[in-house]
């Protein structure tokens, strides 16, 4: 998905396209899973931003906006910009983190079970990435009580830039500054972002796909066939990591 297409998707999500363009884009997005996901995220973003407009437009004032920002815990813009100092330091830190935690290349996935007649029965066990060990991981499906507020993705950054460009007056000043810097510094933590995206687990609030952006912990799933294993006389089981095409009832 290129930048131009991404911009088109943003326009579509924020309803800035003609109906004809929208139809074409919708069709294109449906054929590309990545685009469909990005479009869904942009739409969520729009919904979240709408909820920011809790102060009526005619009552907007600089003081009220500042107070709202402080209430949300966002710090106002700094007096001067130290981005040119922070950038190289951050790049160096990222390089160190990457080198320290990159996956070991010598380890190869181990095939534990396979069936030639169905590609979805191919199972591999891949050692967990060291990154996954340092990243807070949990599967929301298996442990729904806990949630993780994710850091904004690159696509989100693009979306926020777009929002700043086109809807700047609705975006708090500090948030604007963070977006313009192009980097979310540690002060701008995920929980605040989750709040802005109106993420909630209340049953009456729209669910946001961004909630499920937590890194899933892979746990092999067992498929039990009606076919018998000739050696044991029991149904044949196969462990799979991916069950995307398996139909499950409930």
């Amino acid at each position, binding site marked *: 998905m290129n930048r131009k297409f991404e911009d088109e998707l943003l326009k579509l999500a924020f309803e800035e396209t003609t109906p004809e363009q929208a139809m074409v884009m919708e069709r294109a997005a449906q054929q590309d899973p990545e685009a469909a996901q990005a479009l869904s995220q942009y739409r969520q973003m729009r919904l979240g931003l709408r909820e920011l407009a809790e102060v009526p437009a005619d009552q907007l004032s600089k003081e009220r906006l500042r107070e709202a920002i402080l209430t949300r815990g966002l710090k106002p813009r700094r007096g001067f910009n130290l981005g040119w100092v922070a950038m190289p330091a951050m790049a160096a830190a990222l390089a160190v983190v990457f080198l320290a935690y990159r996956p070991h290349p010598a380890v190869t996935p181990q095939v534990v079970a396979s069936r030639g007649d169905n590609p979805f029965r191919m199972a591999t066990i891949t050692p967990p990435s060291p990154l996954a060990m340092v990243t807070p991981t949990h599967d929301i499906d298996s442990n729904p009580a806990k949630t993780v507020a994710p850091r904004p993705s690159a696509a989100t950054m693009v979306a926020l830039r777009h929002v700043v460009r086109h809807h700047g007056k609705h975006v708090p000043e500090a948030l604007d500054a963070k977006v313009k810097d192009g980097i979310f510094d540690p002060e701008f933590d995920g929980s605040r972002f989750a709040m802005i995206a109106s993420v909630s687990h209340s049953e009456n609030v729209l669910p946001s796909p961004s909630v499920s952006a937590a890194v899933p912990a892979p746990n092999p799933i067992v498929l039990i*066939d009606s076919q018998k294993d000739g050696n044991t006389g029991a149904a044949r089981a196969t462990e799979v990591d991916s069950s995307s095409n398996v*139909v499950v009832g409930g």
Partner: protein
Amino acid sequence: MWLSAAKIGLAVLAGWVQGGLTPKETAAWAKIAPSLAYVSDHGKTTAVCVLIDDSGLFLADKDAIGKDTVEARLDDHVLTMKRVGDDGATGLVLLQASPWTFGEGHAAYLPEKPALQGQQLFIALPSGPIRGEFVRSDKVAVLLTSHRLFPMNELKFEAPESLVGGGLVFTQRGELIGALNATLPNQSANTQESRSASGFGSPLPPAALGGGGGGGASKSTAMVPQFMVRQAGPGDLTVAYTVGLGVMRRVVEGFKSPSHEVQHPSIGIYCKDSLIKGALVTRMREDSTAAKAGMQIGDIILSIDGITIKSQIGFASTMLQKEIGQTLVVWVLRNSMQVRLTIPVGKA
């Protein structure tokens, strides 16, 4: 006293050397044996079933039983077993024994808590018991015959020469874990290591079952029939699965109810993974609660009761936690719009 202790010690040692049951295992098996009836067909033992209620209700694996009416032997009594219940989702069936005298057998019971990793088990087979070991209880499996997802127990044992399908799994305290639903293809690569680690190298010869193990010989061990004789020898290590404790409890309670019907929670839909997050509804029963609530094929389930659904596995896992009669708040994505549905949980 010292002489008695020495005798017991020698008996235990003899049991291990012969690869037989220890006195402790003999005593443990004595708790299980009175619960078991052996199904025979033309004089050949084909399956084993377990008494779950004093009224003569036996539980067994559907495939192992085969027919609707079979003949079985409990101790020295010959019984006629008639199928009175069937749970298609798990493949377990309920048999009513006749003639039956109340209290004739010893009804097995389920454990309060899941077994622990490394816990020693017995697997009752038509050819006799074998040792097993509990591995874990956090696996999930999709039974492709019923398209139902269930939590599973994983266990391992040394493969005997006879078939193990439909075998019944017990703890050494005599608690019923379940029936062997499935096995993974043999993984002989790790057999030696696993065997030496878990002591699987020792099979259970009939001599030990009949009292060769020493002090545990009693009426219960005498009940072990002679057809349990099998050749001893190392075999491949087999990984097998039984349905989880919660599902097993639901099955047993359903079978013991007056209707003998097992009810699994369901809203009557079938899903597969969506390209984006969520579970894509691909099929739906016309009379299902989901259909009545307005769900449509092609909807993508995003959340249930505030829990984000990432895939069809997430959907089925969430449904497992629900109870029949409960009302669910379900958000679905339909034509790029999010729709809220209220769906009562029905039964499968």
